[in-house]
């Protein structure tokens, strides 16, 4: 395992932690009922926290999921050869599209987007987790 590969594995570990862990931090723990029927404040609160304030450092502004992705993925070696990174990229685009509705707390708009948002959150988590595991196995 050369130092470039180790560095790449560290970068993916950071992405998995900073983005994958927090992209569904509160919403993954919501009851199933929150994802059906009229959109509840609880769902909007959880999605806003997870997507608009994905990283919330004690000092400095909160960072949305897409800004975090842009910042961390820009440091990855280009072009990406790992299919998981392309999956995450596509999922982030889905999340980013919901930004106006989330900022406006527009329940009606979110009602039409929530299934896609939930699927995108899961994709970000699962793809980063899978990629990290694969890199760890290769290291071992």
């Amino acid at each position: 395992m050369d130092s470039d590969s180790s560095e790449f594995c560290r970068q993916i570990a950071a992405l998995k932690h900073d983005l994958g862990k927090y992209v569904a931090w509160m919403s993954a723990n919501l009851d199933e009922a929150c994802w059906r029927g009229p959109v509840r404040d609880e769902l909007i609160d959880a999605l806003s926290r997870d997507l608009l304030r994905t990283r919330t450092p004690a000092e400095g502004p909160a960072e949305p999921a897409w800004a975090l992705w842009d910042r961390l993925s820009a440091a990855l070696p280009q072009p990406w050869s790992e299919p998981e990174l392309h999956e995450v990229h596509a999922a982030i685009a889905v999340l980013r599209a919901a930004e106006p509705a989330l900022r406006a707390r527009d329940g009606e708009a979110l009602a039409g987007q929530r299934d896609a948002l939930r699927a995108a959150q899961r994709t970000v988590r699962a793809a980063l987790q899978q990629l990290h595991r694969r890199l760890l196995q290769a290291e071992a």
Partner: protein
Amino acid sequence: MSSILIIDDEDSYLELCKRYLPEHNFLPPARNYREAAEILRRQGDKVDLVLLDVHFDIPEADLLPQDKAALLAKGDANKAIERLRRSQGLHILAAIRERYPDLPVIVMTSRDDLPLEADAERLQAEDYTYLLADDYLDARSLKLQIDAILARRERPVVSDDEPFYWGVTAAMAGLRRRLSILARGRLPIIIQGATGSGKSLVAREFIHPRSQRPGPFVAVDLSTLPTDLMAAHLFGVIKGAYTGATSSRDGVLTRAHGGTLFLDEIGNLSLELQKSLLLVLQEGVFRPVGSVKEIATDIKIIVATNENLAALVRAGRFREDLFMRLNPATAVTLPSLRERRDDFEELLAWFMRQAVAEAYNRDLLAQYAEQRGMTATLPISVGRGVPPRGDARRIHFLLHPSSFKLLHDFEWPGNFRQFAMTLSNLVTFTLVELVERAERIEPEASSEGRPDVIPIPPKIVSDLLRPMTPPEDSGPLLASGPRHVQIEVLAADSLNAVSCAVERQYLEQLYERSNGELGRMGELLLGDEGAGRKVQLRMNQLGIKLRRLKRKAGD
């Protein structure tokens, strides 16, 4: 309601926990180690559990370790700091453990997310340290994990089922945790401690079961083996190796294969056999006496001694390479009974329960209970006061305050072994007296107002201790004066042990006469007032506890 401290640079855990675990009290979060240490210093006794993040995106100045020079000297400084941020929780955990060895801590990460595999192994081996079960945080499973940890915490850490009494002090909890960790590792363990302090008991009943090794526990007391038979006993012998070796025999190394070999009084091992033992530790092989064939073995070695092995190395009596292979950095010293006066009362109660559980005493207690119409098997307690209400379902042994003081202040040179025997005798003599008296007199006619309370006659205590008390004027009395002290010279297993005991007494008394001023001692001993530190180091090497001496001076 349990109090939980979150150490995290963000509010993520706090938000989640407040939302999904409202039944607990969450203290204001600590953002770095400095804040955590401050909260624990002020409210440590109220904190039931710590949730600790691993990644801390905080200013460099707040990161542990405080001295980062060595880290920054290697390679890219920015990357080094980033790595430090991403593993900061582990540094914080190590710092917390120095002061709070048994505080439950959930490290809020899964095994995969830890920077190094070795970190995961180490954390999983620790008592009171937990990792998250899932890759990503599921509030429900976190709740289950927290509830399980807190439920365990409510039970006493150590039950009467454990054959060694660990007590209730933080120091002993730390010692227990340390041995538990060492037990699971593959490295050897050195146990130090005075005679009767429980070295072999701890090895057999605590370390071996926790080592999870399938093989047996085999113990050898090297002080009882004749020198010329030691090699054959340890390594085995093949037929015809020497006159009298009429058949091949396995040694203890063969018998202990797959298990644990406990070598008591390791200082008695000859230099030649030390070399053979070194081969076992280095290569995992040995040769039976008279054989050229090497036999592979897989054993965990525990050695015990009441001597200072480092001093034996300096004296040329113990091989340095073997000493280093025995893992001296993690050597564990079991305190003597004298050094455990902080929890003497609990210790007394524990040993009394053990004494009552012995077959003869159990029978006597059953007779006592039957004579008084009480339940045959009873839980017991012990103390200096009478419980306010009578209770026919337990027996309370009442110690007169003067008897308690006698037991408390006694020197107990034979340590726990002597203590256990004394208490066993105490229970026997007390119960025999009462049972016989009840047989002579009708119980109804006796004046016993509280059959659930058994007073231990002070005379029995003093009679039992008297033969073990050294006469006041024993030992060579030297002239008085600052350089003259009274030393009691007792026989020991080696000259080194004798000289250490003499030096220990000398320094302890000198410390007392110097009113605890190490500088004065330095001046007296080395003609240099600045040599106090050297004196302190020497006292530490000899196992002298300055805190105990200070407390004694304060009494």
